């Protein structure tokens, strides 16, 4: 019988980590976090909660592993092709009117969405005047994102997504395949800046015309969602766009009244500055 991490124990752990390392997971949704922590606890074969707790408190390298393992890093290129179709047809033409385009992918994981965006920008003739910022709490995925190397086994699916998203070129032109890896073109990576950033505790670092944060907020409690929405609002130029995941919404957020949804898509445009 495998020991279960109880919710009370999880709370103890989260308080420890905040005190010891300054990482605040206390406003993460518990059910998902419990699954992730339980998974790590089982994977690393801890005999008891006490030993798990002790290791986390006294071994900073293990804490690093904890951050890497409890964050969800499932992503893909051009996921929800209809979303990218709208970006291509409705949003990029507006961004094209700016002399310089700044885009923030918040919680970008291994960067697949940043590369997707770079491809869209390149095909719209906008990449040369764009800068894409990709951030994530997890340093390991940021390193991977920077390299732009993905499993070649995914390319067929991505290529299909690309076609469904209205892509008109040959998707394989964007990468070089070698053995089981596909390395994306340096003309794409040259316009990207990757860095760690914690949405819970770090501040705004620039002003953007487009912020994408997809399937990140579902892991946060409402209180934290509200804080992050305020951070995005603060980081978004007036008339800028905020894009969320397919099951996420601005509806219940404190900034909702200053944003207008683009049709039925999970894209909102900022129509008033905060007063």
């Amino acid at each position, binding site marked *: 019988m495998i020991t279960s991490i109880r*919710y009370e124990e999880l709370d103890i752990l989260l308080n420890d980590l905040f005190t010891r390392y300054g990482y605040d997971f206390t406003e993460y*949704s*518990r*059910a*998902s976090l*419990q*699954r*992730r922590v339980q998974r790590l606890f089982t994977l690393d074969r801890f005999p008891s909660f006490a030993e798990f707790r002790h290791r986390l408190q006294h071994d900073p390298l293990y804490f690093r592993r904890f951050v890497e393992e409890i964050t*969800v890093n*499932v992503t893909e290129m051009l996921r929800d092709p209809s979303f990218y179709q709208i970006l291509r047809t409705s949003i990029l033409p507006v961004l094209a009117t700016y002399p310089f385009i700044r885009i923030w992918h918040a919680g970008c994981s291994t960067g697949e969405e940043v590369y997707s965006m770079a491809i869209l920008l390149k095909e719209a003739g906008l990449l040369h005047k764009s800068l894409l910022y990709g951030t994530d709490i997890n340093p390991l995925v940021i390193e991977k994102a920077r390299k732009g190397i993905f499993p070649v086994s995914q390319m067929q699916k991505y290529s299909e997504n690309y076609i469904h998203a209205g892509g008109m070129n040959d998707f394989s032109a964007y990468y070089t395949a070698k053995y089981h890896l596909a390395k994306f073109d340096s003309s794409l990576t040259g316009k990207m800046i990757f860095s760690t950033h914690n949405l819970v505790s770090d501040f705004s670092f620039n002003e953007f015309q487009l912020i994408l944060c997809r*399937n990140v907020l*579902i*892991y946060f*409690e*409402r209180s934290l969602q509200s804080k992050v929405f305020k951070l995005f609002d603060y980081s978004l130029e007036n008339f800028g766009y905020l894009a969320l*995941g397919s*099951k*996420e*919404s601005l509806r*219940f957020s404190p900034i909702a009244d200053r944003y207008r949804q683009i049709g039925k898509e999970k894209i909102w445009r900022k129509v008033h500055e905060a007063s």
Partner: protein
Amino acid sequence: MKRAELMVIGGSAGSLQVILGILPVIQPGFPLPVLIVLHRNGVFESNLEDLLASRTRAPIKEVEEKESILPGVIYIAPADYHVLIEQDHTFSLDYSERVNFSRPSIDVTFRCASDVYGAGLVCLLLSGGNADGVEGLQYVKGRGGVVVVQDPATAEVPYMPEHAIARVEADFVVPAGEMPAFLKGLAFLPPA
């Protein structure tokens, strides 16, 4: 037996017909919330909510994250997300790795619901071609929840209920045709 507080129905291939048969007994005033976790595929991908809504007058909706779980409402797990349940009886959605090649995974929801509802949980596993849901039922059973499995002899694809019965001591094994009447009885059971 503790009075049921949440019913979770898990199904895969061949389960849709059974669910369509169950829905007419879930009408407005049904005493508990019902969550349906189906392995979706192209066949009933698009109009699942509409199809299910045609069989009942009870409110029926896709799960939204952070939404409160209310009695008498039928919730459907959205395609491509796991459905989790928080201690304050709200839903969370999760886009982490597939479990048993499935997202939504029935195992994930059964376990998570059991952590919150314990003996107040009723789980029902229907027809299907993989074993997703079986481990979850074991967990539910261990925490005092009620385990109901479709009689494999009446299942279009018996693999899933067969494995459930082999590995979990089900409280009830119910033929597809008797399922509606059975669930109605279970839901309206007075507290022991």
